[in-house]
């Protein structure tokens, strides 16, 4: 039994992932249904999603979720069968069910026992389904599929091609019939286990009943039929399967080469339709696999090592070339060049494997906006662009919260109510535009509204009232700086605190979150015209482009994404204002920070030399870092300093350079927080 619990825990992960996906899909589809009304395919995809969830939640033993999805499915079936039309009431009910499903999901994530009460919503669904209809459907749609189907499913053309392919590759293809013992506790889970074991030994081309439709079957035996391809002999595969827990009997029958050419007669027409219907989904599955992020991280680490070693080999080769001139050295050169090309490709492939389209995140927004605009009495249109922009999976997760916060802010504070908009001569309907794009090796995300914009005067007044600023300070502020007050801790312009925004999680949290990801956030606002937030992120967290600089003989790395520009100045250009060295660059006064004191060194100003200054930025703020020397930029692999040293103020991590030495990576945002605190 404990083995089973382990297995279940493992599958719970997979289940939750799938659940997340399906819920998002359903949200999208319901929105579409609301917008465009009923078209056969929309309802069909929603129905299918509900059905899939029902199957998998039943297999996992989540009774509440199964029941809820069952009732949703039931209702959707009526719509599908044209017995019911799409009404706002129906949409609302569906959304309510979705919320309940999400709660159940949270319950499952937290523990195995769902605590959410589904009684009310199920009742609503039931009443809804039974109104208007004289004869509510008594037979659930899946009723016909739950029986233990032992017949071989019909083979579609693509299945036959797959068999052919496997046989061409020298694999043996079998029909496996596996009986599961009748007293097995959760047959569904067992079927999952068998499926996954078979997938490890070879490849499962087909399975009946398919995993999705496996319900808690009636007590009694369950027979699974697999079309399996592998390298094992008939006896071998049989003994492998027999070795699995809870397997009662196994039959294996080799599929001959010529058999695939024949069309196998469909066992039942209904079943055939079901299989046909499921085939697009099945096909898509066979082309993608789920890989745990951990494994990808590990892979990325290994590639990182390779990148480092490659730089080292290159360096060795250069040293050798200087000393010797013979064939071995030039051969080493060739190998090193080739290696660097391959490693470059490998690095790119692994990075790509970690990338997901930002769509994953954007898909959550339409529903959120719908609810928000409803709650706040605003009318707005959401425009999303660049959903296919890809970025690192970890980044997508990390950026979700800040982005949601920005969107909520935009709807709550940015956009005006329809009446106000009309008065100021704007269309009643506001526009919220969220777009993503690649801009030179970075990802940029914009959140733009055509709302009221941010009023610098109001910002100042509010900051004064909250004691963030003194009168004198406020007077010195430019409009630009006043707008930037939004990023100050403890600042929130909301007049009334709604549950939408202004719960103490201010823009300062958003900013520090983004900076933690080596990103930048910028704000551009025009009074009465709207506000635009621009978030710049690196493509990936693991490998960044860094500028190598020398400070006190030590090599340090400044992330390229933080660098605004690099200038060289003479001593004469450096002014001192109230004890602080500054330079003036295009009318902007930038304080100079010496990096040296952090490394127990002195900044030696050599009179004859130009001093390199690296101008780094955070929002509109700029600081100039004085360094001894610039070495150049390079792709670097970020490594943590480890738990022993822990988080060091001002240091984002370290990397290993081509010569094998360790170089520290600067954390620019901490510099600003320091400067801001002064």
């Amino acid at each position, binding site marked *: 039994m404990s083995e089973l619990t382990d297995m279940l825990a493992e599958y719970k992960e997979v289940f939750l992932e799938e659940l997340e996906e399906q819920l998002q899909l359903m949200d999208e589809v319901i929105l579409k249904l609301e917008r465009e009304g009923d078209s056969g395919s929309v309802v069909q995809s929603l129905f299918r999603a509900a059905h899939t969830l029902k199957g998998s939640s039943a297999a996992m033993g989540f009774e509440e979720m199964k029941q809820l999805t069952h009732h949703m499915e039931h209702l959707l079936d009526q719509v599908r069968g044209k017995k019911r039309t799409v009404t706002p009431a129906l949409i609302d009910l569906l959304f309510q069910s979705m919320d309940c499903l999400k709660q159940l999901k949270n319950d499952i994530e937290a523990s195995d026992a769902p605590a959410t009460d589904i009684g009310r919503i199920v009742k609503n669904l039931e009443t809804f389904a039974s109104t208007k209809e004289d004869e509510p459907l008594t037979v659930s749609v899946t009723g016909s599929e739950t029986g233990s189907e032992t017949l071989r499913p019909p083979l579609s053309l693509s299945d036959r091609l797959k068999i052919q392919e496997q046989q061409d590759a020298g694999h043996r293809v079998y029909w496996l019939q596996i009986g599961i013992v009748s007293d097995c506790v959760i047959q569904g889970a067992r079927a999952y286990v068998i499926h996954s074991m078979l997938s490890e030994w070879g490849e499962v081309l087909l399975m009946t009943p398919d995993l999705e439709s496996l319900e808690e079957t009636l007590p009694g035996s369950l027979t699974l039929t697999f079309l399996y391809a592998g390298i094992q002999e008939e006896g071998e595969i049989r003994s492998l399967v027999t070795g699995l827990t809870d397997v009662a009997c196994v039959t294996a029958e080799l599929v001959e080469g010529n058999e695939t050419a024949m069309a196998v007669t469909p066992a039942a027409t209904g079943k055939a339709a079901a299989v046909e219907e499921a085939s697009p989904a099945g096909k898509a599955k066979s082309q993608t696999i789920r890989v745990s992020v951990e494994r990808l991280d590990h892979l990325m680490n290994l590639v990182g090592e390779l990148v480092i*070693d490659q730089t080292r080999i290159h360096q060795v080769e250069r040293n050798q070339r200087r000393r010797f001139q013979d064939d071995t050295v030039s051969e080493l050169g060739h190998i090193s060049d080739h290696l660097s090309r391959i490693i470059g490709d490998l690095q790119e492939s692994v990075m790509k494997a970690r990338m997901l389209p930002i769509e994953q995140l954007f898909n959550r927004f339409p529903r959120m906006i719908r609810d928000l605009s409803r709650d706040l009495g605003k009318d707005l249109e959401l425009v999303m662009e660049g959903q296919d922009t890809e970025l690192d999976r970890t980044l997508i997760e990390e950026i979700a919260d800040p982005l949601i916060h920005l969107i909520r802010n935009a709807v709550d504070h940015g956009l005006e109510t329809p009446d106000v908009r009309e008065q100021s001569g704007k269309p009643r309907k506001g526009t919220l535009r969220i777009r993503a794009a690649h801009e030179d090796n970075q990802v940029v995300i914009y959140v733009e509204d055509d709302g009221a914009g941010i009023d610098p005067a109001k910002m100042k007044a509010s900051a004064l009232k909250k004691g963030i600023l003194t009168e004198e300070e406020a007077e010195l502020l430019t409009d630009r700086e006043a707008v930037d007050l939004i990023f100050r801790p403890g600042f929130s312009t909301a007049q009334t605190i709604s549950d939408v925004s202004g719960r103490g999680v201010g823009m300062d949290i958003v900013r520090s979150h983004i900076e933690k990801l080596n990103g930048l956030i910028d704000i551009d606002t025009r009074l009465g015209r709207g506000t635009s937030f621009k978030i710049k992120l690196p493509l990936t967290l693991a490998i960044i482009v860094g500028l190598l600089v020398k400070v006190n003989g030590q090599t340090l790395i400044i992330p390229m994404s933080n660098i605004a520009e690099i200038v060289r100045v003479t001593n004469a250009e450096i002014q001192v204002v109230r004890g602080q060295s500054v330079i003036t660059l295009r009318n902007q006064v930038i304080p100079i920070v010496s990096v040296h004191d952090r490394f*127990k060194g002195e900044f030696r100003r050599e009179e004859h030399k130009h001093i390199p200054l690296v101008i780094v930025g955070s929002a509109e703020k700029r600081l100039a870092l004085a360094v001894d020397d610039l070495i150049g930029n390079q792709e670097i692999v970020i490594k*943590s*300093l480890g*738990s*022993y*040293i822990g988080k060091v103020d001002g*240091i984002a991590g370290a990397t*290993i350079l081509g010569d094998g030495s360790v170089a520290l990576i600067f954390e620019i945002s901490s510099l600003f927080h320091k400067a801001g605190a002064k």
Partner: protein
Amino acid sequence: MQVTAQEQYVEFGIENEQYAIRIQDIHEIIKLQDITQIPNVKPYVKGVINLRGKIVPVLSLRNLFDMQEKAPSKSTRIVVVHHQEDTVGIIVDRVSKVTTFSDIQPPPDRVGGIDGNFFVGIGFTKGGLVGILRLDEVLLHE
């Protein structure tokens, strides 16, 4: 921790004193390498080294025991230990040998000016007394 007399230890020295760590806690012993300093860390943490692609922190027993700084010599070594999840290097003046102790006594409050908490016990060998380090305290000393 129950210390049995049969356990093997790696004995090393700083100045004229001898210390030891259980052999199973030791990952490897390497020559002194270039150490990258890190600002704002505990004073006895010298920095980090690159141990075959892994970034490993290095600390100095001299600094930890408030002894005089001394320029590294040919015999200076880094004893790399595994402790809980961490790999940490400890800089010592020399590594002497692998040894066992005929007798181990609990440590006194202070051992030659060093807090007794740093030690699991004092081991007896033919060569004299050896302070057996308590890694928990050595590595996580505040």
